[in-house]
């Protein structure tokens, strides 16, 4: 990739990034254009990946070499699209039922083994090595096993939650809260990491080797907002502030 293309890329990426962030201040045409571009670019990327990784090598080329067997899944797949034509939309059921049958058949034994049996075993199994466990390990294993049971009580028992059942399911709620709290804490970190990624790129594009793309585009957008508010900048319905 030549240097010119790299610089052009920096300007393109910095521009699109800043346009999308501009929504945080106020909805505007630059954001809207970038948002729609995202929808199209996403579809375009997926389309070419499907085309060159599956449709061409797995369907088209086998057909050209005389392997007509591949027509069966191809027709089943294409049948899905009939969903958009109400009169013949029932044809899509052939593709859907095949996918559902395959998926359900694969999921039943795997889920039973991985998320059900193994998890029950996981709660009990630590106690088989009781003699070698420290008091803390025993306590932790009890908390995991007991906590799991309490959460299950909260979810499952369709009997009225009162008396002992209510107490147990209430304890279950606390375990769920700790899990959700941990998940929230981690979500904050995850979201900040994504923002860091974008800022890091903007910082890269702000260098002299990119001719200060980030700064210039940011200033241009700020100028647009200032001009817009001066020149008949009444708030239209579609340009409400972002709050």
């Amino acid at each position, binding site marked *: 990739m030549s240097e010119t293309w790299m610089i052009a890329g920096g300007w393109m990426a910095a521009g699109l990034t800043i346009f999308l962030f501009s929504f945080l201040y106020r909805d505007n045409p630059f954001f809207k254009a970038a948002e729609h571009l995202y929808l199209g670019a996403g579809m375009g990327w997926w389309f070419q990946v499907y085309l060159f990784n599956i449709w061409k090598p797995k369907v088209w080329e086998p057909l050209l070499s005389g392997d007509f067997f591949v027509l069966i899944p191809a027709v089943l797949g294409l049948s899905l699209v009939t969903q958009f034509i109400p009169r013949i939309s029932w044809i899509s059921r052939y593709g859907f039922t095949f996918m559902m049958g395959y998926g359900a058949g694969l999921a039943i034994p795997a889920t039973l083994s991985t998320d059900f049996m193994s998890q029950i075993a996981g709660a009990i199994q630590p106690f088989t090595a009781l003699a070698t466990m420290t008091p803390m390990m025993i306590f932790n294993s009890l908390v995991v096993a007991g906590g799991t049971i309490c959460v299950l009580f909260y979810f499952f028992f369709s009997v009225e939650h009162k008396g002992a059942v209510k107490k147990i399911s209430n304890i279950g709620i606390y375990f*769920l809260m700790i899990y959700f709290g941990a998940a929230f804490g981690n979500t*904050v970190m995850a979201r900040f990491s994504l923002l860091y990624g974008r800022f890091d790129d903007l910082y890269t594009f702000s260098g002299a080797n990119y001719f200060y793309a980030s700064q210039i585009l940011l200033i241009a957008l700020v100028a647009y907002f200032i001009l817009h508010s001066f020149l008949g900048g009444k708030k239209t319905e579609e340009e409400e502030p972002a709050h």
Partner: protein
Amino acid sequence: MKFIKKQIPLAIVMVTGLLMVASYYIPHKYSVDYVELMNKWENIVSAFAFLLGLVSLFYSHYGKIKRKADGWGYSLFVYIGFLAMVVPAMMTDGRQMVDGQVTSLGWSFRYIYNALSSTMFAVLAFYIVSTAYRSFRIKSRQAFVLFVAAFVLILGKVPLGQMIWDSLLGWTGQGVADIIEWIMQVPAVAGKRGIMIGIAIGAIVTSLKIIFGIEKQYMGKD
């Protein structure tokens, strides 16, 4: 007609599903051959499922442009974005690198799709902060427990937070990283395992209902 429209599709889901379940437990050459065939077919059928999203998006934006609906000009950008990926792909035969050089397709990914996709999700960081400020209420004991777990995680995952913990609570002899490890390995495991077992039972029941044709909403109406 009902036979073709309804009964054959239901037979497909039942036969495919039951044979898939059986093949899990029967390690025979026939079952392996059957699963291999289904895998290859499923791979291709799924690839066509993508067309549903594509047709739907194009159709709705084509409608907007045709009707000259409010903001129809923006819909043109959907097609521009699509072409910005597909035209370079056609020119390069889907290759992002040729002889160690990035092609126009690779360029489109790095500077258009990458920037757009990652920024769309990065924006959420701003909203999580303002939501935390406006809506995170410690009103009950349960909310307090949630807050404590979140607080420890947010504080202890970064070095500065660890330093603050050590200077304020270092005397306890417990580092915040140890407490995070305990939360993640003990009470959070109990909470998640309960959810996991619950979802597993739900998924198995739903799958059985699909296979036996009790659940058939996905087929649409007659």
